[in-house]
């Protein structure tokens, strides 16, 4: 579909008006926890970066006080230049009607080892399984795909990869597909 026509792409205005609710949500988090960073507040999308030591407290606060009740997705993103791996929890709410459209991205980072030994190195994060049971399988996937071990998760086993997978976790940037 790459058309040879080189019409300029029209950028829509990104700084459209942020609804009050989004603002108040992010304010209540930053008021409660001083150590966190609100990465952005877009309409219906908020992103909060936290340190891994604090993530369980922040997640519990988000669940109990802000009424987010389930995880939509958990993505692991590899940043080899920063020597870090980021895990982003996308949280949503079924019970609070005012939060229907909102997705709160809760992100944290952990150390990345150059020669990974999944489960036996320092690439570890506390598991949010006790706060949001819906993350169980997502965290298992993240463990095998990026080698992030989740402390407190009772079931850090392979899920999608074959049992005899002997290479590094495949979604790390230094794992390359053969021939590409």
């Amino acid at each position, binding site marked *: 579909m790459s058309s040879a026509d080189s019409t300029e792409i029209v950028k829509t205005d990104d700084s459209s008006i942020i609804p009050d609710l989004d603002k108040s949500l992010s304010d209540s988090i930053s008021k409660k926890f001083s150590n966190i960073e609100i990465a952005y507040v877009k309409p219906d999308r908020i992103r909060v970066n936290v340190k891994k030591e604090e993530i369980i407290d922040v997640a519990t606060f988000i669940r109990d006080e802000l009424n987010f009740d389930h995880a*939509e997705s958990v993505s692991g993103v590899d940043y080899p230049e920063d020597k870090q791996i980021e895990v982003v929890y*996308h949280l949503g709410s079924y019970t609070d009607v005012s939060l229907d459209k909102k997705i709160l991205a809760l992100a944290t980072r952990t150390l990345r080892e150059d020669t990974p030994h999944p489960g036996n190195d320092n690439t570890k994060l506390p598991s949010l399984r006790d706060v949001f049971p*819906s993350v169980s399988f*997502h965290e298992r996937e993240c463990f095998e795909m990026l080698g992030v071990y989740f402390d407190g998760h009772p079931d850090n086993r392979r899920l*999608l990869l074959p049992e005899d997978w002997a290479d590094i976790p495949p979604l790390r940037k230094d794992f390359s597909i053969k021939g590409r």
Partner: protein
Amino acid sequence: MSKQLLPGLAIEKVDDRIMTLNIGPQHPGSGHMRIIVKVDGDYIVHCDPDPGYVHRGEEKMAEYRNYITNIPHLERPVIHDSCNILYPYCLGVEELLGLEVPERAKYLRVIAAELNRCVYIEYWLAIYGIFLGHSTMFMWPVGDRELLIDLLEKMTGARVTHAYFVPGGIRNDVPPNFEDVCLRQINYFEKRLKEYAAVFYDNPILISRTKDTGVLSREDAIKLGTTGSVLRASGVDFDIRKKEPYDVYEELDFQTNVLKEGDSYARSKIPWLDMFESCRIIRDALQKMPKSGSVRVKLKPKPKGGDTEVYRRVESGRGSLGFHIVSDGKPQPYRIKISVPSFRNLIAMPHLLTGEKLGNMPAVYWSLNYWPVEADR
């Protein structure tokens, strides 16, 4: 060597009673996945789903291709619902690139997505029918599905793998007589749908097999983060088309279906009810659609996103389908995470099957609207 007891006097230990069974991955009742169940007599005491037999590394592949060449392979996880899996991807890329979709394309997208939803549900219903031993319910949906596939072929040029949605619109406009043909087929299709009630949904055998089996309570459905028909069958009114309307869903007239029972019967009924709503949406969209106009914005070759991320979701045939796209300013995405409804509903499987009779497994398993290929990606 100690003297052996007489065989008839040996006492059975609990461990001997528990038997481990591998259901799948070749068993036709499981799809391309394995479920390891431990049974005590007829009852399942432990269940461990083992997906991954059709894992293809879609997320890794997406990091090697640009936003446009990613289109055909990203629909592969669920080819029967290919429009709906590309929908959130296109919405996300449009947000990244700042594209405004033409009005006519928005309506055509909705029509294609709803037709595709019906195609998917018909296919799923056929499989659900055959695994409950109801061969008529296999033949009818597969036959009726052809009507919609013909329509989609007229629209997109392909029967199943359409690759119809592109960032900034759709690939091509529909042929001139499409609207009349579509309306005629949809009206006939709706008439056929009503006949399913007599043969399937009011059938006492189906009711006795699915009523009160695998009951998922409202609280558990929320806690487990289930989505789509599973969630709505447990009494939670959550449909992305209503809750976070994308494209023109806001202007269209339809309702969401919610049942309170949370059993396999309710879960099997919701998709069928959804198809009536899809017919309503298509009729309404055909009426409100602008009769002419452009259907795609022209893109530069290898468009680049900014240094940002997006998360967009739509309601697919199985539930909320989200794309998390991380961009670092290159033509290729830095990371794509596909949050698929099948994977999210998978967690309900061990929850529901534990304590259930082994014979009820197909009724519960397929009612979860689970598509193994999509869950594995």
